[in-house]
């Protein structure tokens, strides 16, 4: 029971933090683009845009920083055995991440409070450093996570790690694919979300120059990443196929080991009857996507001991959600390109509506993707090395901290949403009276 609460608390804290973390990665980039546009063109809308975006970002950033602090402690509070084992091995990316945080926090202070005291380009430089710090934080922490999926950089002797090589651990087999996928996810999700918000205001007045510029910048950051995302997801899936057969089988709801394994669209895996029902199957698709050969053999869950199965249904469903959103966002990018070509990007109501509907989808995909990664690794906390159940803290009564953080995070979420709503309503065009 305590294990369950520990897992829920970890999942809750990570699921909460990641929202603010990706905003901290992508918003500074958009603010820099807008500020450079302002310096180049002298148009006041850009300046207004940067100021308003930075107010929202300041709030979100602080919540990202404090929820991240909670995570650093929780690694020990909930998983002391894991950290005792893994600390020396993956301490390196966490230490580097610490420096990235410094970079980010220092230049954020300069950026938010330095409008008057810094020269124009010095201020842009501060923004660039914030964006860089955010990106580096994300990169480093994801290498730590990918090490949990594909542990490297040590040998096990009598249950103890020896010959520890933190650099090799950081450059583990899954690191490249996961880092690229995560970075793209951050830019895609935030870009689409911001574009969705401004699309809503453009639907009221499609001529408003302020929202046009905001919409364009957000699309510029979000949509190219959205196009690349399915490609990088394919790379991630190939790495999973090579390194974590149980996770791959769970992703796809693949129970039997077979050649010409199909890709399944939708479907509900039933672990008891060991089959995936209601799926649209494309024969040979999985074998091809995972190994580049439609006749390749894919290991099914039937050949994996039952006690090493991840929760198949949840993982499969989460994966389907992520992929569906990935395809949809890439399609939006194509649509946007065509509209832009025809000069109708800001006036096509259908497209604006589609963007409004898609506002939160990138974030949904991020949460789904992490559920795939983390639940798909169960019952291991370090794939093949340490089980989650063996890593949990001996402290009883974990339901209490879990309940506490749940209440706090729900409260924070409510307040943050209300405050961001207010700053966005403030972004009504200056001519328009407030509120």
């Amino acid at each position: 029971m305590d294990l369950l609460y520990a897992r829920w608390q970890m999942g809750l804290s990570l699921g909460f933090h990641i929202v603010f973390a990706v905003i901290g990665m992508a918003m500074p980039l958009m603010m820099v683009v807008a500020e450079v546009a302002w310096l180049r063109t002298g148009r006041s809308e850009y300046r207004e845009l940067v100021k308003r975006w930075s107010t929202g970002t300041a709030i979100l950033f602080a919540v990202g920083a404090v929820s991240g602090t909670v995570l650093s402690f929780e690694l020990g509070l909930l998983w002391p055995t894991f950290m005792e084992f893994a600390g020396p091995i993956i301490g390196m990316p966490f230490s580097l991440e610490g420096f990235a945080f410094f970079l980010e926090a220092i230049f954020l202070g300069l950026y938010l409070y330095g409008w008057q005291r810094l020269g124009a380009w010095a201020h842009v430089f501060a923004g660039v450093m914030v964006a860089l710090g955010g990106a580096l934080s994300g990169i480093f922490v994801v290498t730590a996570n990918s090490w949990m999926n594909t542990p490297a950089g040590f040998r096990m002797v009598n249950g103890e790690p020896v010959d520890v090589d933190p650099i090799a651990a950081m450059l583990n087999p899954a690191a490249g694919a996961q880092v690229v996928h995560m970075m793209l996810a951050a830019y895609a999700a935030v870009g689409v979300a911001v574009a969705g918000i401004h699309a809503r205001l453009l639907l009221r007045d499609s001529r408003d120059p302020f929202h046009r510029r905001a919409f364009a910048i957000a699309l510029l950051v979000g949509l190219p990443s959205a196009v690349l995302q399915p490609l990088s997801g394919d790379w991630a899936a190939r790495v999973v196929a090579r390194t974590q057969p149980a996770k791959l089988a769970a992703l796809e709801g693949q129970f039997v080991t077979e050649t010409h394994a199909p890709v399944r669209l939708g479907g509900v895996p039933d672990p008891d009857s060991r089959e995936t029902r209601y799926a649209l199957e494309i024969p040979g698709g999985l074998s091809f996507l995972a190994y580049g050969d439609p006749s390749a053999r894919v290991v099914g869950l039937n050949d994996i001991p039952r006690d090493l199965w991840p929760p198949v249904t949840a993982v499969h469903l989460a994966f389907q959600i992520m992929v569906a959103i990935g395809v949809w966002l890439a399609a939006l990018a194509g649509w946007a390109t065509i509209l832009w070509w025809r000069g109708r990007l800001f006036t096509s109501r259908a497209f604006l509506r589609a963007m409004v509907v898609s506002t939160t989808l990138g974030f949904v995909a991020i949460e789904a993707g992490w559920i795939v990664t983390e639940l798909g690794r169960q019952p291991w906390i370090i794939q093949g090395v340490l089980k989650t159940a063996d890593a949990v803290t001996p402290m009883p009564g974990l339901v209490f901290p879990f309940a506490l953080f749940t209440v706090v995070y729900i409260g924070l979420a409510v307040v943050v949403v209300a405050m961001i709503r207010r700053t966005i309503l403030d972004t009504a065009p200056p001519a328009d009276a407030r509120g």
Partner: protein
Amino acid sequence: MRVADTAFLLAAVLVMSLTFYALLGGADYGGGLWDLLARGPTADRQRATIARAIGPVWEANHVWLIIAVVVLFSGFPRAFSAISTFLHVPLVLVLLGIVLRGSAFVFRAYGSEEPRQERFWGRVFAIASTTTPLFLGVVVGAITDGRLPSSTDARFIDVFVRPWLTMFSISVGAFALVLFGYLAAVYLTLEARDSETRTAFRQRALISGGVVGILAGIVLLVSGPTLREELLASPWAIPLHVAAGASAITALAALWWKNYRVARLAAASQVTLILWGWALAQYPYAVRPHLTLAAAAAPEPVRVLLLQVLAVGAVVLLPSLLFLFGLFGPRGR
């Protein structure tokens, strides 16, 4: 020999991060304490001064804590594991404070124009700023006190509560709170923009400086004979205590004669010396009574690499950090 050396160096890095956290982040908490206690005709101006001083720097100051945690779990994984297992309860309370303090601060600063909301978040900020150093102090006290069990086979109370719910740990918590408040008040004399507000902070600095002395006595008093002996046993103990005392007297005298720059320097050196005195008294233990630094440490190559990374990182970061403080400091906080 080298083994001991790198473990010692890494522990020194850890203590340096904690020192910076106390000097910078600690003072930010202290600012919250004075927000809570703001009284008199200048109360609003006091609060505004505090918010202005903390605003641009608190997130950077907070990162020192992250660095300390990261160095602890990469460099001394067994110590991290023991501390976070047995001190789960006070650590959760620390975290709660950290979350509420940071969020409430930005909610107040950016989020609301409505005075009632602003007051509410101001309250949350101030209260969380007060509880956090208290529980941080309790954690440090418990690590020093040496009552952490070596296994978890006993009643919940004995394993997860008794080790930190002691007179000693609580008095260390109170000491930390007042020490940070004192530090903040001294810094704030330089941040204030009018002489009335400055006088208010000077008064607060003098009073809290006195209380720091009293609490230091209480901590020593309740520490019990064995611990006291160990705390005072190292050859460094006496010189460090004397130096800390001298800094304290200098700081108070400088406050009295309104030489605030000297006061700031002396108060910072007082806090630094107190922390170093604690660290040297703790040596060679990471967590009393079972875990020495050597036993808690990561393998040698990991420590060497970590030290190299930290050194390079410091060279890159210190200039930007100095620039930040140069730009917003009171004129250099």
